[in-house]
């Protein structure tokens, strides 16, 4: 429904009512909200709901005694406490270290910056079993970092979580920071503010929505981390996620698993509510420009440089380098044999790694397409600012709803698929189609979180100006929101692709053995004895890492650098 506008005439311009800011037609907004909602309902809410419901229904009657049973055990409280502690610490550390990293990598330019940017994203996609081995071989007794005595401690888990999630903070915050108008900071400086004061009073509030977005995603990732906790934490550190996995897959104790899933949802929803509160308090339109950066100045940028150098060289590079170095170690000394073996399908490797890579890429393309299309729809809807309180509540509810998949265990979703998608027309359990769908459900929140801060930061007066000049709502959307959207998409596509390539939780339940993806192949290789298999697993991990870094670097280049600057 388009709004009719009063054409300003000379006589009426003085008393003309300012034209209402045009929005995309209401109908399109509703469609844009309903399509992703339907997708989420069928492929997430229904499977999860069905599995959780099974835990609360005994002999056809609702039975909530599972709550009493599970909460009576002290172990449950310990697990919940550990989960929240690990997630909070992991998030705090990731954000604290990620902000200087975002500044260095997105606000300054130096030779090799593209390489460092790509390197920073590599940990995100590595299968956690490989990361576990890489970390443990550094930290375990006999390894080079054994003197730190971190093996099997809580600190090791937190460090590994930062290792995985550093790139989320850096890219989300950096992507926004690069587009902030530097003139506001320059104005503050010229009025006498010190660099620190200018940062705290001008830049940080402007970045707060992006920081809150990144923090909420990282918190959910940390709270549902599975492989890392299992391998590095040993038997003493259980989280809600690992407990759900054990109860569901090993004991089929659906009651306990259902109770813990509800707890997980509550923790996730609480975190999202807190983040949403922090975000909305600060959200306002900002002056967004094309990417602006200046050359790195070691004197001026000493602090971010030092912090980022320690993180990148210490935390990120050491385990990756360990992985790389060991992949060249073969039975006959140092050489490329492990990589050569990847090209031949043998007993241990039923498909060559290139076929697995092809499978991974195809699935990733599907998942990315799905996630980006639906994610942009959601972002456009959620970026609206309705006038009524109920409208605003609806929008923030929608926002939180789409983030929920990140806070739910992959096991619950995977097992839920088994009991719901088992009859025509949705008999998709063993179909290849389900893998990109499951990955898209996890990637969609990331797309929304990447695109949304940019959309929300667009000055509504630009839209009003366009409307005043005679543009219809669709044209306004295309020319005002469009360029910002397209630029943010490069980042979002990169994220979605990385998530899909490295996804292992849901994929492990759905993968077909004859068409495995690369993480599945790595997981299989590392589960077999023999130096040759171990070497191949490491080599395949290096291939996965390089492929992902390459794709993300490419995605970053798919942007429009020139825009019409107002």
């Amino acid at each position: 429904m388009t709004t009719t506008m009063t054409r300003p005439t000379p006589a009426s311009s003085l008393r003309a009512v300012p034209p209402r800011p045009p929005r995309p037609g209401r109908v399109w907004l509703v469609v844009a909200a309903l399509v992703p909602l339907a997708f989420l309902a069928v492929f997430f809410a229904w499977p999860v709901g069905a599995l959780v419901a099974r835990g609360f229904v005994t002999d056809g009657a609702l039975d909530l005694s599972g709550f009493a049973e599970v909460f009576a055990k002290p172990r449950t409280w310990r697990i919940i406490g550990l989960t929240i502690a690990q997630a909070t610490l992991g998030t705090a550390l990731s954000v604290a270290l990620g902000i200087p990293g975002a500044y260095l990598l997105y606000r300054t330019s130096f030779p090799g910056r593209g390489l460092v940017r790509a390197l920073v994203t590599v940990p995100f996609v590595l299968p956690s079993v490989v990361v576990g081995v890489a970390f443990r071989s550094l930290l375990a007794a006999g390894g080079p970092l054994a003197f730190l005595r971190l093996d099997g401690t809580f600190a090791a888990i937190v460090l590994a979580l930062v290792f995985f999630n550093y790139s989320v903070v850096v890219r989300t915050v950096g992507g926004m920071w690069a587009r902030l108008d530097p003139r506001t900071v320059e104005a503050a400086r010229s009025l006498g503010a010190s660099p620190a004061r200018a940062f705290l009073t001008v830049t940080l509030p402007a970045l707060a929505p992006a920081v809150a977005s990144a923090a909420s995603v990282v918190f959910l990732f940390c709270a549902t981390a599975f492989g890392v906790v299992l391998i590095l934490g040993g038997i003493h550190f259980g989280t809600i996620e690992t407990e759900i996995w054990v109860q569901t897959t090993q004991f089929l104790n659906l009651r306990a698993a259902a109770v813990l899933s509800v707890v997980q949802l509550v923790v996730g929803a609480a975190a999202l509510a807190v983040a949403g509160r922090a975000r909305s308090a600060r959200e306002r339109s900002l002056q967004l420009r094309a990417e602006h950066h200046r050359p790195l100045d070691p004197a001026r940028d000493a602090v971010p440089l030092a912090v980022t150098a320690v993180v990148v060289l210490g935390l990120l590079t050491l385990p990756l380098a360990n992985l790389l170095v060991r992949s060249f170690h073969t039975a006959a000394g140092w050489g490329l044999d492990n990589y050569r073996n990847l090209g031949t399908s043998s007993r241990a490797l039923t498909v060559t790694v290139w076929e697995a890579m092809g499978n991974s890429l195809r699935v990733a393309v599907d998942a990315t397409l799905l996630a980006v299309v639906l994610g942009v729809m959601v972002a456009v809807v959620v970026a609206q600012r309705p006038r009524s309180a109920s409208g605003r509540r609806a929008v923030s509810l929608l926002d939180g709803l789409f983030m929920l998949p990140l806070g739910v265990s992959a096991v619950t979703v995977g097992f839920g698929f088994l009991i719901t998608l088992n009859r025509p027309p949705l008999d998709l359990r063993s179909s290849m189609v389900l893998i990109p769908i499951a990955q898209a459900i996890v990637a969609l929140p990331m797309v929304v979180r990447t695109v949304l801060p940019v959309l929300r930061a667009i000055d509504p007066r630009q839209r009003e100006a366009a409307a005043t000049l005679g543009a219809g709502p669709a044209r306004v959307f295309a020319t005002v929101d469009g360029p910002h959207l397209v630029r943010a998409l490069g980042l979002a596509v990169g994220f979605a692709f990385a998530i899909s390539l490295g996804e292992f939780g849901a994929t492990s339940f759905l993968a077909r053995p004859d068409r495995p993806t690369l993480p599945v192949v790595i997981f299989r290789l590392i589960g077999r004895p023999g130096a040759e298999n171990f070497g191949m697993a490491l080599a395949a991990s290096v291939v996965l890492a390089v492929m992902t870094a390459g794709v993300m670097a490419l995605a970053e280049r798919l942007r429009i650098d020139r825009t019409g600057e107002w």
Partner: protein
Amino acid sequence: MNRPVRRGAALAASAAALAAGLAACSLSGGTTAATGGTVILVTHDSFALSDGLLESFTEQTGYAVKLVAPGDGGALVNQLILTKDSPLGDAVYGIDNTFSSRAVDEGVLAAYTSPDAVAGMDTADGHLTAIDQGDVCLNVDHQWFAANGVAEPTTFEELVDPAYEDLLVVTNPATSSPGLAFLLATIGHFGETGWQEYWRGLLRNGLLITEGWSDAYYVDFSGSEGAGPRPIVLSYSSSPAAEVGDDGVARTGNVEATCVRQVEYAGVLAGAANPEGAKALVDFLLSDAVQADIPGSMYMYPVTDVDLPAAWVEHAPLAADPITLDPAAIAANRTAWLEEWAALLG
């Protein structure tokens, strides 16, 4: 005024076309329709057979095989139970003896045992057919013990001796199938009232428990790639065959007294869409071609009389008298035993 949107639109269109082209590839099934229909084999993620074997099955019987692997061995039976009323497939392979009784009790299996089944092996009341077997044993690093002048352990009891302090690494029985087998081995050896004291002794003696076989074997074990600090690891009886050096000398070996037998079964699922095809597939898994392929592809031992690889005969023989437990007892007590074990850790 420049028009960046047009260039963006062109890029987006070409990206979409590329994506659509690739997307078509991932969604296409790629399987050829065989004359007899399809048999869906539900298995775990360690299943592997050499190229061509499943194709030869299709040539012989006309059924095409589709593989579904929803998880690891422990999860497999639970997933079958969960999907009882709409089975995941027609045939199942990979149920092992720790879960066989549970699978039968929950009614997920049809009553079929292959006529080619090896005599003397458990068939779970005519519901399952044994396809392969193996032992879970402690592996010792010969070179470490020789270099440090310590006698290699030969029994369970020696491991609580201070001479072997901080030398043993095992895996968590709740999350790892060899770990569970080791727990069951100690229960079988010491009895249902004696195993708790033994584990307390092991824990006092510096036992390390990891979550999965991979990090125990590749990070903590001294006898393999990781060159870790501990020379005694929980692994499979076939693992020493993979650690034979170029000189033909095995670097590691099994502690035979600690070996516990694992048997993997195949069966036909109750309510299968293609029970005839499933029966044919179960029979095929006992054929000489498949049995001879099992050591190389799945690191397990065949149940029929086919020849083992030479390295296995010499360095990784099956234990002559392994510990075995009654599958029904395992099914009845597994959860209670695991909870008791977890309580031992404190």
